[in-house]
């Protein structure tokens, strides 16, 4: 571990690192020059493929492989950079943008050269106002210095980079949602196939990559695939930016080899759990990925190991720590509210399912819970998402995972909560229960729900008991 040399963050503490002058003085744009002037685009693609760089945006798809899906006979390629970073507690892309914009631009330049894209769109999260300004300044600087624009380094390669700001929707981080939004439409993810590499933005072959993924590319070009593969764990190579937040002493964004354990992150880098408390659980990589319980904190945070404790994956490597004073129901309230709010509303299971789960969890929180609610939610969560095949995009999986994990790991606590938190009037009314069960509703009996008048006495009803 002592030999690990950070590369993504190497300029972060250098004064004025954002400026092109400082960046160039520290070896900036040398990798781009090397790639553009001495390498063939396909050689760059092969290099990235050999490095087994996996996407940092959440899905962990091999980056080089994705680039080879582009049709061979394409006329035009578009590069969309996913900077919509909206996963709660994730801020590594933001640090990269704000502290070292030129490294990011160099990554775009090499990747566009490799994929033969001469237009690149950087889709930035709406709330990143400062980052937008910084990246726009950097683009202007790089263009003036000939790193972008026409005939870069005399190679005849042209590249334009445009910044596009989102409008505040999590779903626009999903790659096809991003493309729709970029086209000026509502950010509704598309069905696949066709994948963006075949038909993406404006119906052209399109590559979508995360900011951090692209930031790794210059270093791979500079130091080679073997160097990259020497870092990390098998199948998860390279350096990774981890963010730690929540109930820790120090909220940080650190660069470490892939495969660091959750406990190391908390104890060695974030100053431990705050106020001397113990961790009850930790979210391993953005709330879509589920939950690690306290005894699972030694799980390495890489693309493979998180399956074992039942999490969805590494996600954005954004660790959120939950201390032992926090009820798990509060975690569920927050996650379910987020996904119900952010579901785009396209697929029936996600639209209705996230709303339903959020309502049920809020009811439990307010003291109206029933034990069977947990089973209903679990059944629902198990049938939600692209893994069972019931939705278009992965948001629904992300909505299901916190519930699945919380119920698998903290069910006794949740049952206890339901039993001890019962507030009169917070639960479902008898009428709601009857309607749901398909029972015939006696409006007279359910007087508290509907004040029904007594049945009218018919004139000719000799058999009527009280006649």
């Amino acid at each position, binding site marked *: 571990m002592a030999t690990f040399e950070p590369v993504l963050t190497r300029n972060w503490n250098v004064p004025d690192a954002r400026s092109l002058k400082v960046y160039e003085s520290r070896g900036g744009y040398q990798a781009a020059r090397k790639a553009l002037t001495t390498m063939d685009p396909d050689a760059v693609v092969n290099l990235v493929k050999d490095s087994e760089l996996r996407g940092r945006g959440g899905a962990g798809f091999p980056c080089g492989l994705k680039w080879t899906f582009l049709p061979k006979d394409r006329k035009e390629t578009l590069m969309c950079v996913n900077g919509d970073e909206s996963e709660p507690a994730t801020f590594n892309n933001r640090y990269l943008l704000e502290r070292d914009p030129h490294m990011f631009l160099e990554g775009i330049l090499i990747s566009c050269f490799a994929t033969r894209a001469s237009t690149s769109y950087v889709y930035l999260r709406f709330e990143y106002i400062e980052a937008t300004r910084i990246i726009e300044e950097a683009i202007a600087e790089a263009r003036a210095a000939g790193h972008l624009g026409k005939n870069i380094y005399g190679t005849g390669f042209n590249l334009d980079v445009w910044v596009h700001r989102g409008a505040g929707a999590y779903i626009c981080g999903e790659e096809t949602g991003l493309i729709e939004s970029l086209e000026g439409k509502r950010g509704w993810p598309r069905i696949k196939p066709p994948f963006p590499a075949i038909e993406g933005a404006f119906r052209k072959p399109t590559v979508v990559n995360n900011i951090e993924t692209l930031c790794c590319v210059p270093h791979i070009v500079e130091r080679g695939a073997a160097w990259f593969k020497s870092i990390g764990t098998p199948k998860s190579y390279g350096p990774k930016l981890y963010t730690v937040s929540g109930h820790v002493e120090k909220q940080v964004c650190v660069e470490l080899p892939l495969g660091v354990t959750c406990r190391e992150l908390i104890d060695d880098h974030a100053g431990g759990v705050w106020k001397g408390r113990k961790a009850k659980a930790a979210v391993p990589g953005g709330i879509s990925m589920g939950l690690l319980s306290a005894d699972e904190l030694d799980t390495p945070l890489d693309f493979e190991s998180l399956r074992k404790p039942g999490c969805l994956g590494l996600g954005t490597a954004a660790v959120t720590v939950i201390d032992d004073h926090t009820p798990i129901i509060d975690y569920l309230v927050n996650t379910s509210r987020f996904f119900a709010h952010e579901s785009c509303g396209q697929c029936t299971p996600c639209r209705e399912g996230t709303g339903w789960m959020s309502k049920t969890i809020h009811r439990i929180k307010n003291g109206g819970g029933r034990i069977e609610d947990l089973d209903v939610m679990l059944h629902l969560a198990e049938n939600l998402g692209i*893994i069972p095949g019931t939705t278009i995009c992965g948001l629904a999986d992300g909505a299901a995972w916190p519930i699945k994990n919380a119920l698998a790991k903290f069910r006794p606590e949740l049952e206890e909560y339901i039993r001890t938190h019962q507030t009169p009037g917070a639960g479902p009314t008898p009428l*709601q229960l009857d309607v749901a069960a398909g029972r015939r509703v006696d409006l007279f009996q359910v007087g508290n729900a509907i004040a029904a008048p007594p049945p009218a006495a018919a004139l000719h009803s000799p058999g009527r008991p009280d006649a």
Partner: protein
Amino acid sequence: MATILINGTEYPIPEGEKLNAIQMAKRVGVEIPYYCWHPSLSVVANCRMCEVEVGSKDPKTGEVKMMPKLVPGCQTPAKDGTVLVTDSAKVQEHQRMIMELLLLNHPLDCPVCDQAGECGLQDYSYEHGQSNHRFVEERIVNPRKDVSDLIQLNQDRCIMCTRCVRFTREITQTAELQVMRRGNHAEIATFPGVSLDDNPLAGNVVDLCPVGALLDKDFLHKQRVWFLAKHDSVCTHCSTGCNISVEENKGKIWRVKPRNNPHVNDYWICDEGRYGYKDDSAPDDLLEAMYVLKGDDHVAVAIDEAVRLVDRGLKQAVIGGRTVAGVLSPFLTVEEAYLMATYLKGMTSDAVLAVGPVPARGEDRTFSPDKSAGRSGDTSFLAPRPFTIHAEKAPNARGVRAVIEHVQGAVVEYDELLRKVEAGEVGALYVASGSPTDWIDEPTAAKVREKVAFLVVQDSRVGALAHKADVVLAGGTYAEKAGSYVNADGRIQYAGASLPPRDGSLPDLDLFAVLLDRPGGPARSSDVLAELAEAAPAFAAAKGGTLPLYGATLEASASSPRENGPPPFVDAWYAAMGAAKAR
């Protein structure tokens, strides 16, 4: 030969068509339920009702490999070796879940909903759903709103299939509708300051909506759909000849819906045709009986007397050596035109046959869906078909002309006939109109009356000329008569009668048959058409008198081959459902 395995049975895949799993299964009689998919719109796969188990069969070993997850049938192409399982416990469990989810926030207001009886939610609930659910939270309640003067949106009933939105984007390309908000608060809405009022095809969104969310205010709360009897007809409001279903209860038409014809109107009709039924059956303006001019006034007479007077008047003119002329309006069916022409020519071969004026308004307006623009989903299954509203506002100008050409050799234009009338060359004139609007104005009518000694007008409405005619024959409206029309593309299509003849009138075909003294009881349009097809080479396509479902082209050309090709998939929401089907 390419084959597909559906629920364990192997079926050949028809060649030359790109079908998805829903269409392929339907061809072999296996129903896959769906909401958001529509054969003329792009595939978005968002309702998730059509999910099935999909796999593939190894061509060499015959081994079947299934995918672990469910896949929407709408986005699954029917390819050689595809395996579909549509009835497994897993699929049925999934369908139950989707039904439960769709109904979470759906109000239980079927008793007051117009869609009841032809509703996708009702039908699939019954077939694939369950009678209880686990949802005990509060439902979302959304207010009703209008998306145009004629269309109401009941947002709580909407299932977000986005068919309506895709229609305005992909077919009319006017994009008035959109989705607002996210998640289960998503709503269909028009853009600010926009409504569907100016969209000439707006009414189709009501038909597209699989539930009772978009409703026609013209029909709102007027009838329960199971009381309606549906009659296959053809729209007479322009020369496109859209296939329609005229829906009536106890002799009153309540609404007109499109019928699918891939060669003519696909699944659509324009609003003019949709709401046109009101003008056609406005009661105060219809002819209630046959009239004869006695002195200054018209007196109602029995049908046979009126017909006798017509025959006598015309024959006297012939005997007196005066020219007899007939005006055959483009609203007559082919069969009516043929009988009228034979009648007049049979009286004297000098009779002049003229085609009536063909009304025109505005310009042809074509909506040509384009696979590349404005689409929001997968378009690879689409065969975009343009839809045209013609400026020519009559259904059968081509058919009537072809009949006159056959009987007389050449067509006399209406203007030419008017000149002959003005020159005093016409002694007796027989005008058969059937037009839903007036096409002879007062001054022309007065002139005609002055010059023509014996004037017969046959019409369904009271027009300027009828006030001056010697004999007025009450014919049928388009809904009261059966026969065929030739549309702008030369396609001959059969329209059945939707209503019985009104009291005091007789369908035009019967009037001509009586005049001709045709043997064999009431005239059948198919017999007449068969005779015409036998006699006139131009109508050879109608041989035998019965036409195929989608009609037949009179002259085969590259753009309209004589063969109709395989029957394309018909969207389920168009098939008559429930009780209405049984009547």
